[in-house]
């Protein structure tokens, strides 16, 4: 029932709450107790529930024992014991490989990679071992119980190696799933779905929102279905697609656009691989315009995949080229982070919203040039 309601509940826009929180919330489904939590607490709750409900589940990674660098694993070692929640040495390749083996024996391994920037030593294990295990063994073996969690994305001052968004690399691998939540409530449901999904999942958590995002999160065990995008704001003039922390930025751009009379439809993709093409397609067929935004560099980013697919499916309905407002094609910079990031001003003045004849150099005016 929860999943059905999730699919058909219309989302409400709830004006301003504190702490830069997400501005939407679902209608309460039934009489569930909710608690105001931030992102790391929601994830912590999800992990507690996952370990409680399945005695053969384990959480491990670097420094998770004392709670982890972002406090996501607080209390787990104390509650479930050092045999189920433990620290590993500093070796990402070893950690993920170990997790694959554990999952192959029918356990649920929830692996933490301390920062997504450090996931690359494990890339071989994820791509060559985890993603292809079921396929190459003819379904005899699988590592579906594997879930890899990693904080990703800009944090304001992270620099080259504490801010990367590597989701595009993983979206290119058939056999794994890639999931990115946008808020505490979503994170808890999506993480529980990811852990219980019978496929290996890479779960990226927007680290900027660990403390910044606060939301009412139901206390019970609930799951949010994977591969289902959500229309979090309805509109009729343009479709915006994004995920993770970037949605907060895009929502601000939408509000600015409203003032200029442009009605924006905002979609949270949630699962990037496999992604919900139908929802985005339906929306673009309605509005005729698409803008995709993500923090990762623009070339080869996941926005390119969305753009190509939508072009194939909605070519005749499109009124302007698909626009991508993304990070620049540079290594994630240190002092230049504000220039690199796809801010709401870049979104507002994206060229897909301007008529072709106008001079695109005076771009402060943004959406109004759509019409």
């Amino acid at each position, binding site marked *: 029932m929860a999943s059905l309601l999730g699919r058909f509940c219309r989302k409400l826009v709830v004006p301003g709450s504190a702490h830069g929180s997400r501005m939407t919330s679902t209608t309460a489904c039934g009489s569930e107790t909710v608690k105001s939590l931030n992102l790391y607490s929601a994830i912590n709750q999800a992990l507690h529930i996952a370990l409680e409900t399945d005695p053969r589940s384990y959480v491990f990674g*670097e*420094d998770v*024992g*004392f709670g982890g*660098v972002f406090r996501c694993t607080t209390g787990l070692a104390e509650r479930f014991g050092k045999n189920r929640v433990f*620290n*590993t*040495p*500093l*070796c990402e*390749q*070893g950690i993920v490989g170990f997790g694959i083996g554990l999952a192959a024996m029918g356990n649920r391994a929830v692996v933490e990679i301390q920062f997504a*920037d*450090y996931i*690359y*030593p494990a890339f071989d294990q994820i791509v060559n071992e985890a993603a292809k295990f079921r396929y190459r063994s003819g379904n005899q073996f699988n590592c579906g119980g594997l879930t890899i969690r990693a904080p990703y994305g800009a944090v*304001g*001052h*992270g*620099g*080259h*190696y*504490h801010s990367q968004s590597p989701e595009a690399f993983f979206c290119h691998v058939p056999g794994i799933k890639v999931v990115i939540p946008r808020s505490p409530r979503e994170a808890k449901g999506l993480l529980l779905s990811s852990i219980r999904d019978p496929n290996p999942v890479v779960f990226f958590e927007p680290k900027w929102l660990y403390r910044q995002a606060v939301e009412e999160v139901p206390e019970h065990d609930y799951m949010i279905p994977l591969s289902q995008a959500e229309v979090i704001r309805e509109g009729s003039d343009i479709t915006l697609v994004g995920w993770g922390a970037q949605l907060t930025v895009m929502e601000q751009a939408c509000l600015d656009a409203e003032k200029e009379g442009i009605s924006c439809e905002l979609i949270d993709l949630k699962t990037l691989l496999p992604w919900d093409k139908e929802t985005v397609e339906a929306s673009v067929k309605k509005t005729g315009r698409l803008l995709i935004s993500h923090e990762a560099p*623009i*070339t080869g980013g996941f926005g390119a995949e969305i753009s190509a697919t939508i072009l194939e499916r909605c070519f005749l309905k499109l009124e302007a080229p698909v*626009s*991508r*407002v993304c990070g*620049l*094609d*540079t*290594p994630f*910079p*240190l*002092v*230049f982070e*504000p*220039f*690199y990031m796809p*801010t709401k*001003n*870049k979104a507002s*003045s*994206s*060229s*897909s919203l301007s008529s072709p004849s106008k001079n*695109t*150099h005076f*771009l*402060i005016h943004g959406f109004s040039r759509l019409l």
Partner: protein
Amino acid sequence: MALSRLSSRSTTLLQPLATTSLLRRRHISTDTTPITVETSLPFTSHLISPPSRAVETSSQELLSFFRDMALMRRMEIAADSLYKAKLIRGFCHLYDGQEAVAIGMEAAITKRDAIITSYRDHCTFLGRGGGLFEAFSELMGRTTGCSKGKGGSMHFYKKDASFYGGHGIVGAQVPLGCGLAFAQKYSKEEAVTFTLYGDGAANQGQLFEALNIAALWDLPAVLVCENNHYGMGTAEWRSAKSPAYFKRGDYVPGLKVDGMDALAVKQACKFAKEHALKNGPIILEMDTYRYHGHSMSDPGSTYRTRDEISGVRQVRDPIDRVRKLIIAHDIATEKELKDMEKEVRKEVDAAVAQAKESPIPEPSELFSNIYVKGFGAEVNFISPLETTLSFGADRKELRATLP
């Protein structure tokens, strides 16, 4: 009068004194009369006979050790305050407590020997001849920094001193260091590479890959494990089956050194360099300690007690050890040393003030040095239609010209 006191205290080696002019104030800092000091602990070795515990040094060297270590200590403390004042952003990993490793190593090698290390590189940079002003500028992200403000705390480099940085990913610098050693061997430079890594990085697979290659090809690589006993928040006994990092090389010889004793470090590095030039790789494990947490975001007290930290500070502090040596050998008085420390403090404060005035890099620097100019690689901006526009955080339109 003062000189005679000196000669009566120096040990067995009575060499004719260097001719220094006798002024009212002792000019001991130029005295290079050899003094022999014993290291605090004997060396423990693996597959090799350890060097002697008796280290040759001189007043000049001891005083320079003291001054340089005091400078490093002061710099790290200044960086701490700057970080808390939000002038340094990002991640900042401080080296105070471990200064003896950087100083002792420099005393044993030349600027043609290469050093490559992890992100805890401020003092290593200083040891290689880097200036305080460049260091603070880089920390605050200014153009006058050693990496033009684009690297930050974790990415200090100095090409003319063969300092290859400054690396953020743990353990990634080790195969690189072995590659540097290969290049040195190939060009017959009679130089070695010192590759530094921590006890956390010692568990990375790429380390063993690099070790195997270095041993197979007899590369002049000295792998130095700066064992400060904590891989961020995890103690070594919890992450390593064998915390005897100097033995981890298996077929590669190793030496365990008291990393808080600058003279022991010097002896070990000298020994290691000779070995590496003749026989190939060797591992040095420096038993050291960091007073700060892993980085400025880590208080450093959730996984170890404050008593432990203050205990090490009281008993094993590298600067205090050299101070005691200097006073025992009557090279300088306590007051003179304190004056030196005050001088150092002024120097650091001046560099900080100067660095604060330096400009931040031009916006066009965001796009420079990604590729080499002129080979057809253009950076893609917001869309192909807008080629040179980018926006600042305050809605001001900025034109960034492509180099």
